[in-house]
């Protein structure tokens, strides 16, 4: 197949190149014969033969030359073809390369943009996660701080509470306490009396005596302590 293609190419090339070759014939080597008068007839014959010979030879030479020329042309054409093919190939390759590059660039760009949007999303989610975590941690911190302060308040009130003689298990007195941001007890009112005025009084006094009550350093948590309920329920040996 390749051969056939080449032959075809050669033929086409021949047509194309042949024209050039006709318009510019190469200097053909001429074989000069020295005429001799020999037997005329013979000579004639000879001349004839020679003429024929020469003609033959000339023809052969022509043929040869033509063939050589064709060959050269062929070669040249082939070379040219090769060059052209190479050029074309190169061009094609270049273009392909360019296309590839472009494509690559596009892909890269697309990938990059996709990547960046993914990154953004991830970042966004990460940020949300972090914020949520921070909020959760803050809430947990607030919780433990509330519990800590609650404990401190309990301790201080218990230290201040003089349980009156005659208290019994099951007695209960609930007191509502309003605090200033300094922890000072603004007022303490019995919301559920125990039934024993002495017990209730001891409860009120315990709250006022414990004033100021401990508060969290974080002022933001004060709201939890602005209003408190203290439930007095004595335990232990009466």
């Amino acid at each position: 197949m390749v051969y056939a293609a080449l032959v075809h190419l050669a033929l086409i090339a021949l047509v194309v190149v042949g024209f050039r070759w006709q318009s510019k014939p190469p200097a053909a080597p001429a074989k000069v014969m020295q005429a001799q008068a020999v037997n005329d007839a013979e000579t004639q014959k000879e001349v004839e033969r020679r003429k024929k010979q020469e003609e033959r030879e000339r023809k052969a030479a022509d043929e040869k030359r033509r063939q050589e020329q064709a060959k050269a042309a062929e070669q040249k054409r082939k070379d040219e073809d090769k060059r052209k093919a190479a050029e074309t190939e190169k061009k094609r390759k270049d273009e392909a390369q360019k296309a590839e590059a472009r494509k690559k660039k596009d892909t890269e760009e697309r990938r990059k943009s996709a990547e960046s949007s993914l990154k953004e999303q991830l970042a966004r989610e990460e940020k949300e996660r972090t914020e949520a975590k921070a909020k959760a941690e803050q809430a947990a911190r607030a919780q433990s701080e509330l519990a800590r302060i609650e404990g401190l308040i309990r301790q201080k009130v218990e230290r201040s509470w003089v349980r009156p003689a005659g208290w019994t298990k099951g007695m209960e007195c609930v007191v509502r306490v309003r605090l200033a941001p300094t922890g000072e007890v603004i007022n303490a009112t019995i919301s559920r009396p125990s039934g024993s005025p002495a017990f209730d009084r001891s409860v009120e006094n315990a709250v006022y005596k414990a004033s100021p009550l401990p508060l969290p350093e974080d002022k933001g948590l004060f709201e939890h302590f602005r209003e408190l309920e203290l439930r007095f329920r004595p335990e232990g040996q009466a």
Partner: protein
Amino acid sequence: MRIVQQLMNIILATLLAGHASLASAILTIEITQGVDGGLPVAIVPFGGAGKDHPPQDVAAVVEADLARSGRFTPLDKKIFVSRPTDDKQVVFKDWRIVKAEALVIGSVKPAAQGRWQVEFRLYDIYKEKQLAGYSYVVGGDRLRAVAHQISDLIYEKLTGEQGVFSTRIAYITRESVGKRFNYKLQIADSDGYNPVTVLSSAEPLISPAWSPDGTRIAYVSWEQRRPILYMQNVVNGARSRIAEFNGINSAPAWSPDGTKLALTLSRDGNTEIYVMRLSDSSLTRLTSNPAADTEPAWSPDGRNIIFTSDRSGKPQIYRMRPDGSDVERVTFEGEYNARASYSADGSMLTLVSGAQGRYHAALLHLQSSVLQVLTDTPLDESPSFAPNGRMILYATERGGRGVLASVSSDGRVRQLLKLQEGDVREPAWSPFNRSTTNNQGATP
């Protein structure tokens, strides 16, 4: 990604909701522990008029009363920042510093006709307000009585219960006179001061018992060389024999309405409990047991009579109806339980509880059956409730002789009563005083 985000949202929402609920719901803190003790009260020495010293330190009497009750802890005057004697000098902050919950100030000044004007004010330190303020004009001999009234007012204002400082106590003293003894039935203030002799005898006197109205005392006297039951009016001294049956006549106990006496008689051979109707001296026998049954006492509602019986082999407390039915044993703890009587609210008995030569004043909480020993001295006897049930008067021994002591019903505060020489026994705390002293109860 979306799931994570949604999860996050849910978590966040939950947290925020939790936060919100924290913010809206009121924080409740449980208080279960405290210091068991008396209410800290600052009693400032009363002011007066320079040179003229009243015959009684009224503030000191008030302080001793409040301390003895166990309900108050008077603060040491050394820590006082100020010593106000009238309203204008009171600075509440001064008293919060020393952790006082209440403040008592006052003055005793000479008044016309050798009398004294006593003023006092009681303050709530934390509420910064006056709770009581009274003025009295009395003779010097009534200053202690006024002091007890002031103590009662303070007690009532601060505890919501009636004070017993103006009530009286009855008891028996025994003094050596040569080779013999002299016995006296006496009545004194609740702190043992101002004793008045109701009856004096060369023979033993025992078991004084106040009538519910506080006007009469029933008691047992050996003046006829055998125990006979008498009743005596403490106001006019009028006296009558109640029971002089053969054998023992003893252990009188008034019914709550004052119309009957439960008593112990051995006229039928064995020591049994009877009820006598005072209007016609009719007798009903309540017990019928080969063991000794004695020391009856009525419940405040009149529906039960408790008594001591050794029917189980050792003295224990039993309960029955006033007709002698439904007898049941009440005490099970301890080898020896005797001489029981009810608190005014009927929830407790005070009794002598012990074993092997050690006898203590104790409380029996009827609902829980918990027996609470109040004293640690070895020979305590005749415990008697104060009419408000918050203190118990009993006899004990100190230096080889009988003395009276009081203990708060939580057992925390015990104090010997100041009484004159001699052996003192058989105390009985009076009911609430019906009569009042000249109280000019004007709030200044």
